[in-house]
């Protein structure tokens, strides 16, 4: 059942006021309304008269909205710059997740010296307390978690953020498409080390393209593959479907709990 301030909630959120401030504003207005009704009843009004008087004293919907919109510091980033929080931010977050994944794998399996001694790069040896047989399973789990889960989580986060802020659908849609396509296009390939921790052959590489898959260093080919392309599209569609489900659930919850 809609509450007396629901139209105000929608108006403020669509105008970019941060959900946390909107929630608190409406809760404070409701409390204030109850206090005013009590005061009017104590002064001898009937319940309907008291409610009407309380509503009038609180201020009209326009005045209540204008007062909130007059405070720019109460706007959220999603309201102020949806392109940044719903499109560019998630894209950068995906890249950050991949970078952290690479760092994690390097910490796990080590960073070997250049076999030809041409590149004086720093050498990182894997931790001695971790059995070498555990490196690959842990690393693979981390790789799958970020490669599969990263775009799903980030896409869902974009959808939830947009649903909470009642953002125009174009922004979360664009953000989710970017994350879904880019997330499905990028394939990480890890060549796990042999038993010798100084084995120079292990490395991390990636390919970026929806239909082209292959390790350019080893395979020397980047042939287009319909199968890979279809798989990439299916992964993108799955990412989008999960984000759409998150958006739908969040909107449904806001409608039923408002």
């Amino acid at each position: 059942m809609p509450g007396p301030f629901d139209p105000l909630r929608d108006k403020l959120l669509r105008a970019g006021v941060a959900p946390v401030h909107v929630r608190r504003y409406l809760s404070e207005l409701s409390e204030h309304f109850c206090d005013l009704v009590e005061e009017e009843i104590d002064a001898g009004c009937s319940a309907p008269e008291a409610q009407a008087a309380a509503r009038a004293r609180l201020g009209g919907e326009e005045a209540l909205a204008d007062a909130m919109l007059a405070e720019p510091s109460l706007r959220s980033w999603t309201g102020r710059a949806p392109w940044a929080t719903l499109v560019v931010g998630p894209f950068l977050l995906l890249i950050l997740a991949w970078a952290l994944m690479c760092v994690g794998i390097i910490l796990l399996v080590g960073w070997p010296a250049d076999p030809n001694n041409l590149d004086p790069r720093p050498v990182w040896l894997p931790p001695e307390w971790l059995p070498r047989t555990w490196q690959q399973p842990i690393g693979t789990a981390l790789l799958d978690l970020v490669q599969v889960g990263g775009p799903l989580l980030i896409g869902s986060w974009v959808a939830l953020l947009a649903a909470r802020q009642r953002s125009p659908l174009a922004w979360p849609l664009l953000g989710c498409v970017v994350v879904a396509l880019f997330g499905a296009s990028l394939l990480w390939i890890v060549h796990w080390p042999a038993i010798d921790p100084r084995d120079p052959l292990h490395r991390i590489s990636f390919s970026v393209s929806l239909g082209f898959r292959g390790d350019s260093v080893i395979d020397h080919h980047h042939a287009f593959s319909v199968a890979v392309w279809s798989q990439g599209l299916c992964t993108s569609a799955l990412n989008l479907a999960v984000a759409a489900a998150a958006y739908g659930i969040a909107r449904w919850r806001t409608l039923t709990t408002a």
Partner: protein
Amino acid sequence: MKETGSNFMNGVPELLVLRCLRDREMYGYELVQEIKGRTNTVVTLGEGVVYPVLHALERNGSLQSRRKAVGGRSRVYYALTPKGLERLDGLSSSWATLAEAIGRVMQGEAHAGAV
């Protein structure tokens, strides 16, 4: 009661809120009644519009809030911070200067009318 004209009210709610909260912490309804009482209802705001002022002051560090359950109701109490006290001092002196200047103009008009 008719609301006080908004053209004359720029910055006034903020000043009154800070001044009232200097004495003790209050929640919104209490604060509005305090302002009405202290100004003999000369300053009357749409009561709900006090909350955006409170939120903005809290956001800039002039106020701090805490939720407290009183008589089965959940209230958000606001209290002045040291930064808010500084802001109140600044606003008070600006207001005093402005009121004095306007007073001089009005007195001048009265003198001119007498001549």
